[in-house]
C-alpha cells in the first residue's frame, strides 16, 4: 500500500500578534487569546504566495524523499488562495521542481480540506499503479476581512508530501472520507474575503465532520484513541482541534506535537498537513498517527499512518516544522501587515 516517501513544510518569517490586530480594532485581545487560543500568526511577505510556499515545502519534501523529481507522475496543489482564478498553480510548481512534462497536474479546492485531498488522490493513483510517485501540497495565504474574527487566525503556510511505494517513512493503513452539504464558510467569485456563519461553523460544521470522520476511520480500523501515539486535527484556531481531540478521548500529549495554530494561525489547506509534518518530526518507528482534515462546505478526510524505521534517516534532511515556527521570526505591525496583505487601496 502507498505511503509517505518524503514530507516538508514551509511558513513565512513574518508574524503578527493578536494584541496588534486587536489594538487597531479596539478589540479585547485577552478574550481572543483565551477564546480562540491564538497568540500570533504567520504572514506572507510581499512576493510570497501559495505557489512560492508550495515550491519551498516541496523542496523540503524532496530532500527527505531523495528521489528524482522526474519520477513524480502527479502534482496536486490544494488551496483556496491560488494566485490565479484561471491557470493552475500546479504547473508552476511542477516546472520549478523539474517534474515536467510527463506529469499529471491539477489544482484542488475544498476550503481547508484541499491539501489532504491531493494526498488522498495520490494514494489512490499509486495504489492503482497509474503513477510511481505523486506530489500533494496544501498551501494557503488566507485572508480574513479587516476587523472580522477570522483576521486573528487567517495565516500562511504550506506542507508537501511525496506519496509512493517502497521505502516509505509512514505507511498509510487506512483512509476515510466524511462529507455533507453544510454551508458554514464560503467565498464567491470576485469576493475578496470569505464569509462565515458565525457559531454555525462550530458544532454543526467543524465538530460534526471532524468527529464523524475520526470515529468512522477508527471504527474501520478497529482502533481506539489509546492505539495512537499522535493525532492531528484541522486547526482553524487553537481551541477547536484540542477540544475535538478531547471529545474523542485523546490526551493533550497526543495532540500537542502537531498543534501549531496557537503561534502559526490557520494555514487553511496547509493546516492539518503541516500538523502532520511537525508530528512526523518527533515520531518514532512504529508510532501510529491519526490525521483528520476539515474543509468548510463541508467534509473531512481521515488517514491512519504507521511510522517506519526510515523516519530516523530522513528526519534531519530538511528543516523541521517546529524549528521553523519557533525561530527566525520577524514581528510586524498592523500597517506593514495591511501593506503585505494588500489591504490598502493604492493609487491607480
Amino acid at each position, binding site marked *: 500500500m502507498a505511503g509517505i516517501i518524503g514530507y516538508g513544510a514551509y511558513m513565512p518569517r513574518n508574524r503578527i500578534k493578536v494584541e496588534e490586530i486587536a489594538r487597531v480594532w479596539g478589540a*479585547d485581545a485577552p*478574550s481572543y487569546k483565551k477564546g480562540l487560543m491564538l497568540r500570533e500568526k504567520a504572514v506572507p511577505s510581499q512576493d510570497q504566495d501559495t505557489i512560492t510556499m508550495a515550491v519551498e515545502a516541496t523542496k523540503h519534501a524532496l530532500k527527505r524523499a531523495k528521489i528524482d523529481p522526474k519520477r513524480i507522475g502527479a502534482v496536486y496543489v490544494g488551496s483556496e488562495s491560488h494566485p490565479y482564478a484561471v491557470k493552475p498553480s500546479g504547473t508552476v510548481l511542477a516546472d520549478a521542481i523539474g517534474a515536467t512534462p510527463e506529469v499529471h497536474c491539477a489544482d484542488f479546492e475544498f476550503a481547508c480540506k484541499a491539501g489532504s485531498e491531493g494526498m488522498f488522490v495520490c494514494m489512490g493513483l499509486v495504489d492503482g499503479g497509474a503513477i510511481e510517485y505523486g506530489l500533494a501540497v496544501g498551501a494557503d495565504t488566507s485572508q480574513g476581512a479587516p476587523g472580522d474574527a477570522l483576521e486573528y487566525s487567517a495565516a500562511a503556510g504550506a506542507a508537501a508530501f511525496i506519496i509512493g511505494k517502497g521505502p516509505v517513512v509512514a505507511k498509510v493503513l487506512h483512509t476515510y472520507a466524511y462529507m455533507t452539504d453544510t454551508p458554514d464558510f464560503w467565498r464567491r467569485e470576485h469576493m475578496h474575503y470569505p464569509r462565515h*456563519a458565525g*457559531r454555525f461553523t462550530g458544532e*454543526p460544521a467543524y465538530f460534526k465532520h471532524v468527529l464523524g470522520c475520526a470515529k468512522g476511520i477508527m471504527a474501520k480500523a478497529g482502533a481506539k484513541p489509546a492505539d495512537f501515539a499522535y493525532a492531528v486535527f484541522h486547526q482553524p484556531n487553537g481551541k477547536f482541534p484540542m477540544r475535538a481531540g478531547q471529545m474523542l478521548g485523546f490526551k493533550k500529549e497526543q495532540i500537542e506535537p502537531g498543534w501549531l495554530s496557537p503561534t502559526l494561525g490557520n494555514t487553511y489547506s496547509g493546516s492539518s498537513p503541516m500538523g502532520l509534518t511537525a508530528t512526523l518530526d518527533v515520531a518514532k518507528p512504529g508510532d501510529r498517527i491519526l490525521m483528520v482534515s476539515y474543509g468548510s462546505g463541508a467534509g473531512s478526510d481521515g488517514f491512519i499512518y504507521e511510522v517506519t524505521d526510515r523516519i530516523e534517516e530522513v528526519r534531519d534532511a530538511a528543516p523541521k516544522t517546529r524549528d521553523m515556527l519557533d525561530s527566525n521570526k520577524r514581528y510586524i505591525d498592523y500597517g506593514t501587515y495591511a501593506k503585505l496583505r494588500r489591504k490598502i487601496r493604492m493609487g491607480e
Partner: protein
Amino acid sequence: MRDVAVIGVGMQKWGELWEKSLRDIFTESALLAIDDAGVDHIDAMYVGCMSSGLFVGQEHLGCVLSDYLGMGPIPSLRVETACASGGAAFRQACLDVASGAHEIVLAGGVEKMTDVDGGGATFALSTAADAEYEVYQGVTFPGLYAMMAVAHMHQHGTTRDQLSHVAVKNHKNGSKNPLAQYPFEVTVQQVAESILVADPLTILDCSPITDGGAAAIVCSLDAAKRLSKKQPVKVLASAHATDSIALHSRRDISWLSAVEKAGQSAYKDAGLGPRDINFVEVHDCFTIAEICVIEALGFFERGKGGRGAESGETAVGGRIPVNPSGGLKSKGHPVGATGVAQIIETVKQLRGDCGERQVKGAKIGMTQNMGGTGGSCVVHILGSV
C-alpha cells in the same frame, strides 16, 4: 368573565437548534402541550414571536403554525410585543377563554434566532427599542441596560458583585433544569471577568441567543375540572402595562414603571400582595433587569434589589425565590417563547414537578415578561386549585 385554568404545558430543550426550523420547534412544543393536556383538539391559538420576519424571513405565522400543527382552519394569531410577546400571547389566550369565545385555546411562543449571524440578531433585537431616537443613534440593548445599571449603581450603590450574584443564582437554578440552554454554574469572579459587552455588563450578565419554543393549553376552570388528567392551575390575574418606548423619556431610567403598574394591577385582580407570592419568574434579559424588576414588583424596596441574590433571599429556599427555572440567563431567551416558558415553569412548580429546583410548598407563583427596556410588561399570577 369566566375563570381560566392551564391544563397542559409543553417545551423541549432550548439551545442552538441547528437541525430544526421555526415551524419544527413550535410544533414539537405545541404537540407536547396538547398531549400533556390530554385534549384531542384546540379551538384557537395565539403564538408569541418577536421577529420571525428578520430572523427567518417568515411572517404570517398564525397561518404557518396552525397549518403545520394540523389544526387549520381554527383561528390562529401571532402576537408581537417584542420580548413580552410570549406573555402577551398567553394573556390573549386567557382573555379569549374568559370571554367565552373559545373553550380550549393554545398559547405558544417561538423564536428561531440562529439562522442569522450575531450582527443580524443584534439588529433584529434592536427593533424592540425606539428606532428613530435610540437605534438610529447607535445604541443596542446591552448599551441601554448598561445605562440602567450605571444609573442604579449611582443612585442606590448597587455593586458589580450584586450583578454577578444574579447570574450565579440563575445559573445554579438552571443547572437543575434539563431544558436549559446553559445548565452549568458560574462564579461571581467568572461573571465579572468575562468579556465586557457594554460597561459594566459582561457577557455573563447577558441572556443568550436561543432557538426554542413553548406552549400551554388553557380552558375555562369548569372545563378543566372535566377535561384535565392533571391538577389544573388557575390563572388568578393577567395584567399588561406600557411605558415610554425610549429609555431617555423616563423620569428615572433605573425604575420600571410598566412593571410596577402591571404588578399592581395583577395584585389587585388576584386580591393578593407581594408577600403572598411563593416564587416569581422574571425577565432577567440582563442581570440588572432582574434587580429592577424585583423592586418594581414590590419584593424589595426601591434601590434594594441588588441585595436579593447577594443575600440569598431570591434563591430557591430563600424568602422569595426568583427564577427557579434558571431564568433567561441560564435557560435561554428565544424571545417570543420566553413568556410562555415562564408560565410553564410556574405550572410545573405548582404541580410539584420541578425536582431539585422545586420551591417547596409552592401554591402561588407569578410571572413577569417585558419588552424592550420595559416599554411593555405582562404579569400573571397563577395558583393551585
